[in-house]
């Protein structure tokens, strides 16, 4: 093998794209050729340096929003069913009052809940990719909460639960049900908990419900006009504990 050939093939060798026979030939050449051996070492170093640098870009949220908008919207929003319209009436003046103040009324049907749980798990999975977990990194609730101001039509409650064994690590804007949503991120040991918070027209308190989807546990509840979804690979017992601690701290805040 000539150096000319080797200088092309060492790349395929580094990338693991050569079959065993060719790989042996290139390795044999590199062993007997100081020039090619040194080159290969440098290319490996560059490759390593590239792998360790963050060369990726994060798509702007505005772009995600534009693409979402260009796709047909979920059926429930495009054409409300008779039942959901009736339920809207049943909610009565509370909804009208909120509609009047510009709040968006969303009436959830059961299959919507299922679909949204799917989306929430997808958002959780996305967040676990390198560099996607947090837009604002801070263990200080007084840094994370103001960060959401002006980015969403509702400011998600941010509560420090470090003393209760759940470390606040930051916040993020995400996209669920074709709209922007706040995600507050906690950790217990190595497990990430995403707490998604969205506004709802329904101010009725709904007690927690645990479900499992694609191996993730979801604890869903509603309180004072906000829907919550806590998603994690934590066991159902520990995720329930998280939700209980969170709700407990919310009540304490309200009373205090």
């Amino acid at each position: 093998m000539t150096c000319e050939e080797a200088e092309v093939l060492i790349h395929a060798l580094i990338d693991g794209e050569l079959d065993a026979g060719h790989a042996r030939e290139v390795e044999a050449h590199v062993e007997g050729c100081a020039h090619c051996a040194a080159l290969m070492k440098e290319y490996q170093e560059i490759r390593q340096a590239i792998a360790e640098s963050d060369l990726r870009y994060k798509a702007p949220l505005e772009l995600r929003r534009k693409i979402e908008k260009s796709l047909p919207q979920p059926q429930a929003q495009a054409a409300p069913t008779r039942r959901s319209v009736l339920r809207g009436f049943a909610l009565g003046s509370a909804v009208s009052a909120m509609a009047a103040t510009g709040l968006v009324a969303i009436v959830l049907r059961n299959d919507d809940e299922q679909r949204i749980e799917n989306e929430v798990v997808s958002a959780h999975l996305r967040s676990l990719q390198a560099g996607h977990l947090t837009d604002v990194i801070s263990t200080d609730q007084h840094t994370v909460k103001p960060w959401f101001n002006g980015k969403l039509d509702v400011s998600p409650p941010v509560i420090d639960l470090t003393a209760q064994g759940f470390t606040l690590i930051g916040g993020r804007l995400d996209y669920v049900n074709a709209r922007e949503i706040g995600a507050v991120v906690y950790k217990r040991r190595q497990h990430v908990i995403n707490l998604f918070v969205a506004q709802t027209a329904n101010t009725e308190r709904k007690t927690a419900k645990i479900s499992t989807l694609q191996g993730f546990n979801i604890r869903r509840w509603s309180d004072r006009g906000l829907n919550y979804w806590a998603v994690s690979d934590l066991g159902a017992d520990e995720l329930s504990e998280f939700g209980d601690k969170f709700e407990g701290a919310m009540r304490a805040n309200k009373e205090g």
Partner: protein
Amino acid sequence: MVVNASQDDPEKARRFREAALPYLDDAYTLARYLLRDAADAEDAVQECYLRAYKHFDSYRGPAMKPWLFAILRNVCRAEYARRKTAPTAVEELPEGGEQTPLWNEAPETPEKQLLRRFDGETVRKLVAALAEPFRETFVLREIQNLSYREIADVAAVPVGTVMSRLARARAMLRSAWLAEQEQAK
């Protein structure tokens, strides 16, 4: 059938969201390196997702990521054509460019000491400075982790061309790296 289409759309949109949206950052990253402009990259990715959705019915593979990339690459090529002044457009590269012997590219004897490490910003700059189509091949391999076969499909060239482009890309990057290192001394 219009009636059926309207009933299928939300379901199709849901499947498309789940299949394609997780690759939004990957697509945006590729567009940034291909077009070297943030606003153009955004437009290209949006157009790519529109086209992908339109053709989603006929999508049977390959993997979603290379499929999206092939669409995105076509969108970016249209953008090159629009920027008539761009001297580095793929179409305008003389065929012989790829056959230039490697040793003309990097004549220096490889240095014994470790290569200097640069911060991410500097490395991005070095990669962005690579000429097309070497930049494209390099980004698909090193940043997007595509196999040679997948890169060949995205760029619509034989695997052998992917190999030689990648060799050239790394040789050019190495030269630029050493030059940057020299300058930083």
